[in-house]
């Protein structure tokens, strides 16, 4: 019972801040709303008995990615963005198709698909040791590929952002 209350609280704040992200004019305000949303998602991870993932979410998503976003937003010119008006044109497409598709999918989700047996909740929380062991044995290959990916992304980002090299 208490869990449902907490879940609803986090969900409402998450959806609210997500709506704020896509509708606020100032990118800094949007970034702060996104931070709020990401924190709600981390809380939901805790509800799902994955505290490690919640901490990872806060450290990496909020602590690194959003800080990077804010840094770039603040370094680049803000005034122009504040003057940006809400654009016309593509709005009707997004407003028409996406909610229809969304409601359709919601109907499927709340239908019979996911209430059958086989979806019983795990009782204990996932230990870090379990995750770590899996990451280094079963999932070793994607782990190594991701490390190469991080190197490639680093090289690429630096090349792009560096000043002209003459």
């Amino acid at each position, binding site marked *: 019972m208490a869990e449902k209350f907490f879940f609803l609280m986090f969900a409402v704040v998450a959806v609210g801040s997500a709506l704020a992200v896509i509708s606020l004019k100032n990118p800094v305000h949007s970034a702060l709303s996104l931070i709020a949303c990401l924190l709600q998602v981390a809380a939901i991870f805790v509800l799902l008995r994955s505290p490690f993932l919640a901490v990872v979410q806060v450290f990496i998503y909020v602590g690194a990615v959003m800080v990077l976003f804010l840094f770039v937003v603040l370094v680049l010119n803000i005034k122009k963005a504040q003057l940006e008006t809400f654009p016309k044109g593509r709005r009707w497409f997004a407003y028409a198709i996406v909610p229809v598709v969304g409601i359709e999918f919601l109907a499927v989700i709340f239908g019979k698909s996911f209430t059958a047996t086989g979806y019983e909740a795990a009782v204990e929380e996932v230990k870090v040791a379990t995750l770590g062991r899996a990451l*280094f*044995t079963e999932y070793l290959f994607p782990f190594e590929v991701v490390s190469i990916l991080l190197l490639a992304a680093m090289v690429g*980002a630096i090349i792009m952002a560096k000043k002209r090299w003459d």
Partner: protein
Amino acid sequence: MIFTIKDLLSIIPELIIAGSACVLLLVDLLISKERKACMAVLSILSVIAAGVASYWLLGADFMGAKSFAGMFELDGFSTFFKFVFYTATVLSILLSFHYVKEEDINLGEYYVLMLFSLSGMMVLASGADLLSIYVGLELMSLPIYVLAGFLQNDVRSNEGAMKYVILGAFSSGILLYGISMVYGLTGTTELSGVAAALSDSSVHVPALSIAIVMMVAGFAFKVAGVPFHMWAPDAYEGAPTPITGFMSAGPKAAAFAVMLRVFMEGLQPAYEQWMVMVGVVAVASMAYGNFVAISQKNIKRMLAYSSIGHAGYALLGVMAGTEEGIASVMFYMAVYVFMNLGAFGIIIMMRKGGQRGELIEEYTGLARSHRGVALLMLIFLFSLAGIPPTAGFMGKFYIFMALIHRGMVGLAIFAVLMSAVAAYFYIRIVMLMYMREPAGEFEFARSKGIYYALFITTVGTVLLGICPGYLVKLAEMASVIM
């Protein structure tokens, strides 16, 4: 048991490419600006080394097995595609030698990023689990985003790369949503496990449809199929031309490899569902791509729309859902690498007044003064249009055969009609070259690299058109993946 020697041996080609990319990153520091061409030579050597390793692995007795706890699959299918990727990479590097000097983007990191992207493609082709597929997909794409924007001083390049990144990330998100749904419905992300769970038929159909729609949408973006093609014309036009060639050949072939594997191996039990969606994207791509290409004035943009059309033909091969269909798509991708990179090689050669020669009207009257170049361009354009006896015709022929044997004759006829429409804008360039008088002097960018590349692509295009049998047989042998 973390991993065995067998596991390590099966990823030797990937290790070679990724390892040499890292080594080259350091070697780049020791090479002076004037001699950066050795970076290109070294990267070609490493690709050749990986090719030798792949060939050697063909004879290994663990061929066809999965390694690394089911994440990586070494079989004929992935090896075939890896050779396609090697060819695309080597050709693109050959075409880059002169171009990077002219456009002042002569950085060692250019080649390093290409190698990283190649390693991503290889991981993608061998991915037997949705996790390695996703990771390989991103490893392939991130360097390409950067390479597309490599011409830092050109706004078109920046804009093209920006559109590519945003739409790429968007489609990754959609694909991931589909993957998460598949995981939720089947309890695993391993492709063979997914197939087993789905054929159990206890999976509720509507939720599976959501998953399939999302995955088709995500993959359709990567191959630039309509209606997820919006990034292609801008990214193709803005990117450095050798990179446009690379983008149109390598990642596209990799995306088809992964589409074939996921849809034929993993989602095979759900054939009726994804067949329709893939078909819709295929038809829309052929129609839209070929019609819009007619009105283009920039040749790179025109080739972008033409590659949207070609993606449509290949998607028909995927839709056929038989081993013959798989083999025909594999053959088509090999053919596509040769003819597309050949056309881009000619485009790179054309420079006008120190600028990149990219407008179609600049090819007017080429045949009067330079017969050889015009003849090569004619071969490539005919191949793209699908006119015998070029490789392009053979590629389309096998796809249509696969469709007809499956009973989808209507689609095959539609594809032939679209080919006819496409032939219009290819032939139009040929007419421009041969029937008109030249407007001015032609200046060419001449370099050994371009000559080698043109030689290889011409031989490939003509040879595969006249006697495609060997490669088709290879593809058929390799297509038995289930």
